[in-house]
């Protein structure tokens, strides 16, 4: 294997694709490579090509979660989502751009069962154990997207700037279908460069997890009030980060037998989050 270290985004884009995989913090890519879930002929170390740091409401995609969790200028919801994500070492290594692109924690996917996301013809979790899986958008694939940060950024109405376009965060994601297992719309040779994060009037992140720390969300609820309007983003409930347009959306959940318990948790956390951002 080869390692390239481009010094600009343009150079990086020129190198990406065709089995050349971008590497930043490495917390996801390195284990996936080692487990054979991802193949790469070359690794493109993008850390010199992607902005890092916080400038007003603009966050470089290379900024680590550890840097974000201690920055007082960042909205509370994002800071808290970073603080409660992963472990201290993973937060110190992982970039916010990489966090948005992380793969599911579904054990069947991680153990390389031939599921839809691996190009197979079924969702093994649905017939098997799906204790940690989805209650929304689980028609095809039942996996749950684990990014706390994405939920927070959805609630904030974040815009992304990539090497090819500008888009609202929600448009980065797509539900996988039986024909197309992709969960993002990012091209192989496209890099997330910056995030434009509006400052809300009030925001909060609430996370139900198995341990007090170092756990992926069972349910994560992000709420932010911007210009009087409250937006809700959820983690751990669907194959992609999930936007709730209203509380009534919860009535349209499609829980599986093993994920039904997530619904009352989501209800409780949404109610609490709404109360929290209603004032303050």
């Amino acid at each position: 294997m080869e390692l390239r270290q481009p010094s600009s985004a343009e150079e990086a884009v020129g190198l990406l694709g065709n089995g050349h995989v971008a590497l930043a913090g490495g917390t996801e890519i390195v284990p996936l490579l080692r487990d054979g879930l991802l193949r790469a002929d070359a690794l493109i170390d993008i850390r010199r090509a992607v902005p890092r740091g916080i400038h007003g409401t603009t966050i470089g995609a290379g900024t680590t979660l550890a840097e974000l969790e201690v920055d007082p200028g960042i909205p509370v919801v994002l800071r808290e989502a970073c603080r409660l994500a992963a472990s201290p070492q993973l937060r110190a290594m992982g970039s916010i751009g990489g966090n948005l692109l992380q793969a599911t924690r579904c054990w069947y996917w991680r153990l390389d069962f031939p599921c839809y996301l691996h190009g197979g013809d079924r969702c093994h979790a649905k017939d098997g154990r799906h204790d940690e899986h989805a209650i929304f958008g689980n028609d095809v694939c039942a996996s749950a997207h684990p990014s706390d940060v994405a939920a927070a950024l959805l609630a904030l109405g974040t815009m992304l700037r990539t090497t090819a376009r500008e888009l609202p965060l929600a448009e980065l994601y797509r539900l996988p279908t039986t024909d197309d297992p992709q969960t993002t719309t990012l091209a192989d040779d496209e890099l997330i460069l910056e995030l434009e994060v509006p400052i809300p009037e009030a925001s909060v992140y609430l996370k139900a997890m198995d341990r007090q720390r170092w756990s992926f969300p069972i349910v994560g609820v992000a709420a932010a009030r911007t210009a009087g309007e409250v937006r809700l983003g959820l983690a751990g409930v669907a194959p992609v980060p999930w936007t709730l347009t209203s509380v009534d959306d919860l009535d349209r959940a499609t829980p599986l037998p093993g994920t039904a318990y997530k619904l009352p948790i989501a209800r409780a956390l949404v109610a609490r989050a709404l109360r929290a951002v209603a004032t303050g």
Partner: protein
Amino acid sequence: MADAPQRARGEAQYTADVLLPGMLHAALLRSPHAYARVKKIDVRRALEAPGVHAAVGPEDVEALTDEPGFFGAPVAAIAANTVEQARAALELIDVEWEPLEPLLDPDEAVRRGQLTDEPRRNERGDFERALADADVVVEGEYRTQVVLHNPLETHQSVCRWEGDTLEIYTSTQYIWGIRSRVAKQLGVEPDNVRVVCNYMGGGFGAKNDPGEYTYVAAELARRTGRPVKCALTRREENLAAGNRNATIQRLTVGARSDGTITALGGEFVNAVGWDGWIAPTDGPMQTLYHCENVRTVTYGAKINTAPMKAFRAPGYVEGTFGLECLLDELAARLDVDPLELRRKNYAHSSNERPYSSKNLMECYRRAEPHWERRHELRTRSDSTWKYGAGLASQIWYGGGGPPSYAWTRVGSDGRITVITAMQDIGTGTRTAMAQIAAEELGVPLDRVRVELGDSARGPFASISAGSSTTPSMGPAVRAAAADAKRQIIEIAAQRHHLEERVLDISDGNVVSADGNLSSPLEEIVGLLENAQILGKGARGPNPTGMQVLTFGVQVAEVAVDVETGEVRVLRVAAIHDVGRVINPLGASSQVEGGIIQGIGHTLSEQRLLDPATGTVLTQSLDAYRLPTIADVPEIVCELIDKPDEHLTNLGSKGLGEPPIVPIAAAIANAIRDATGADIHSLPITREEMLRALEAAKQKQRGAPAAV
């Protein structure tokens, strides 16, 4: 701890750190099926892969199998220059599998009579009649899950042949057991097997036996003439290195309306796995309380899952959860205080033999102030967070036993070395043994050094399992120190023309009773020059006709978020009676460690299987959730510290296991106190907690209005 600096500085050499010249690395091919036959296996392509030196299969090593009975069963192995090369070559082993239908349901295994052993039946009195006569009967089904040991150092061995002598560096809880088991298996003289384990990174019961990694390394080393290391990966560790088996417990208690327990009955199904033994899940029901009519049956279900192994108080952890939850449900039914209920049914004398010592009543007394806190605690409850306290009793073994031997060597510099071929599994053994020798010899602790961890450099020492290290080894060390002391005093008596009986050693000085003589030890033994004093000690027998057991009680305080099912353990008070305490700081570490491991068992840990294939889904530590530092409650540790006067020259029992025994029930009972919900299944995930809360709500609706 005497060896803490080495561990903290990263200088301690574990098996994982052993690097011998020319060492090869082995990797194991494991079954991708929960049940299958290997119809054909061909390693020729693998042998041609880069870096590969040798391969072995089921015909070469008995620990490898051609009829794997669980997902991850070891089938073949490769030795290569690097572990990556060995793993890559595994892909080139051609295997023709014949998959068979796995049986994963333990109840179904019992129905089919697919058992690992004869069911164990224990009965005294007349259970049926006592039940019929009881004022109140409470029944319950309790389930406990499979949990995985997950020592941070995985199971591993490095084997090297020197002529006909086999050296084994291994991460083990039983140096001498490895020596004799491997010798027997390979047909080698035991003295030609040397087992070394200076530091080991945790075992918790899973490292009592050699394991396939040792046999594979030994055979590959023999074939290649090179040292071979075989180290399990974390995922292999969680597939095939042992587990605490799941249980299903169908329990019944009958009592008089005053709370006197008159009948106890239990059907226990232990989901043993493909191999293993029937842990005493029935033990607490048989032994914890005074009850004349007890009937238990315990089944060992043989199913297509990885074999169980001992895990920190096997059987008693699971059985105590069931029994102590059942007792609290009885207490609630009778409206009796749970602590009072336990006192009322106190077993003053054993149902079989007398106890060598038992201070459980004293434990209960010391629990009172902790138990009283529940009144204030409950007042903190609001509509979301409910607070409560619960308690559970503990009974377990921990007396150790013979044989065990130790030597002491006193040089002319007055320094003492304790020599015994035991292992320190991380429980502070070096320190405890040094303390015992120092106390007996009357010298400061820093004069004593403990040499252990090598079967070639010391006498037989017992297993570090069953909370037995200190009670088994301590008396041998003490006897060896006493033997050396006797010899020193003999020399001093001759030199100073005094009677031996007036002499003693205190704070490193040989002193006479009248105070006229106070001579530093090194001056007395300094006369010896190159001669040395050698003391020998053997562990004496346990008291005849007595049961040596440990006891305790724990009080847990919890908060439950009734909307989201979150359970927080806030505080645990642990009061245990383990005889004399040698090292209070180290003892408190054992208590804390047991409780924290037990909190994992209670709240967050479970091995999950794919129900169709038996594939283990929780192989890695992101999915299998050990407690972190953020999950630790306030822990208050109180030890009774009364020497057991019937037990050896030391009066000490073991403490490794007792603290993990009652914690799950104490937490579950605290949850009931806080919320009214009956917990019947471990772990208490959000799902289980919300289910129990919903069931409690239904019960309340259905029940007649409270009077």
